[in-house]
């Protein structure tokens, strides 16, 4: 297999465009996922009987193959970017819901009680005490969801919204490996950069946790 290095500078514009396209599908999917997952997770955390149902439902969504998911949505949303975004959002849910529930579970009961004792209402306790403390675990989920979404966008190329995945179909059809290689490399790079950005955001958002490396390993374990 030979790589034609000359292909890369010639197609820089195309690659930039596809990368932007890729992000325009992956980023809204994760944001939408968070918007849905947070209330669901809080519900599962507070209302015990709902817990099994919420976690089970998000697990089942995950078992549906990504390709099938996009296709299943076709009758509803058609050949649009919405189909790709909704499909990816469903995928992010399993990680985001589970990690948020786990993060909230890990907040010591005493902390919540102390907050209540100081006269803070349940909503404010949630927003100002529980969620910030759960943030590292939630962010671990966001990182996994982001990396996964970026990788899965390429599957949406079958319905025409695959971002860098378009390079795979192109290379496959023309029996030409160079675009495929560039697509794989750019997807990996994009996922890596997004992950690094999220680590930075988390570091900025949780000033009380800086320093030790022990928590970093425990975080990674959660992410695994």
């Amino acid at each position, binding site marked *: *297999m030979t790589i034609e290095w000359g292909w890369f500078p010639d197609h820089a514009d195309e690659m930039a465009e596809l990368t932007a396209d890729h992000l325009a599908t992956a980023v809204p999917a994760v944001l939408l996922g968070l918007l849905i997952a947070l209330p669901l997770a809080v519900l599962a955390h507070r209302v015990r009987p709902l817990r099994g149902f919420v976690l089970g439902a998000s*697990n*089942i969504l*995950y*078992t*549906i*193959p*990504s*390709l*099938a*998911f996009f*296709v*299943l949505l*076709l*009758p509803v949303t058609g050949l649009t970017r919405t189909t790709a975004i909704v499909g990816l959002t469903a995928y992010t849910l399993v990680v985001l819901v589970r990690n948020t529930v786990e993060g909230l579970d890990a907040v010591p009961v005493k902390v919540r009680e102390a907050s209540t004792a100081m006269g803070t209402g349940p909503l404010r306790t949630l927003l100002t005490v529980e969620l910030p403390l759960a943030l590292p675990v939630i962010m671990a989920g966001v990182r*996994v969801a982001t*990396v*996964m979404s*970026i*990788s*899965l966008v*390429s*599957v949406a*190329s*079958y319905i025409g919204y695959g971002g*860098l*995945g378009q*390079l*795979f179909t192109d*290379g*496959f059809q023309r*029996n*030409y*490996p160079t675009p*495929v*290689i560039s*697509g*794989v490399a750019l*997807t*990996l790079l994009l*996922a*890596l950069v997004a*992950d690094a950005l999220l680590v930075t955001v988390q570091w900025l958002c949780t000033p009380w946790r800086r320093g030790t490396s022990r928590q970093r*390993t425990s975080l*990674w*374990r959660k*992410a*695994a």
Partner: protein
Amino acid sequence: MLELLKNLASWLTSPAQWSGPEGIAARILEHLEYSVLATLAAAVIALPVGLLIGHTGRGAFLAVNLSSFGRALPTVGLVTLVFLAGGLSVWPVYVSLVALAVPVIITNTYAGMAAVDPEVKDAAKGVGLRGRQVLWQVELPLALPLIMTGVRLATVQVVATATIAAYVSFGGLGRYVFDGLAQRDLVQVLGGAALVAVLAVVADLALGGLTRLLFRGRPATAR
């Protein structure tokens, strides 16, 4: 929408659709063959590596970053690449599915091993167990629930992703999805997709049942 569901039901229940080398039964078998062999191969590669990393504590960085890398690697790209490099054979299917499953199993195996309480390991050494005995008699049994979670996750992903076999013309249930997409036959696409989803759920439940059977009477550390 209702019409579509009716057509889908008749597609799924028509006996003609189920028989023959192009039938659903044969496609399910192909799909299972790819999935089972790929998951087994991945387990054979990943379990020793994960156990070794967990036991020695060396290479933890690798174990942890591998999962991230594995998740970021686009499977469609990989299968295309191996196909273009090696030509028409079933290898691209297996390479991609194994590459998908290995990081998941390694990371979970390592996580299971790392979660074993160091005091328990010290106690095991204290009563005279040697390194290898600690691994087999203490660490492995304690890590097993998380290891099984990893195998389960990997299996579901492999079953769901084995549709790519059809992309490089090797049958499986993905055939219906790709053929249906090419022929604009939505019923066929949905039928194939539904079958894959059911297969993935069944595989997950089966492994979950197996895990429960293995850990009957043990504290529920398995998630």
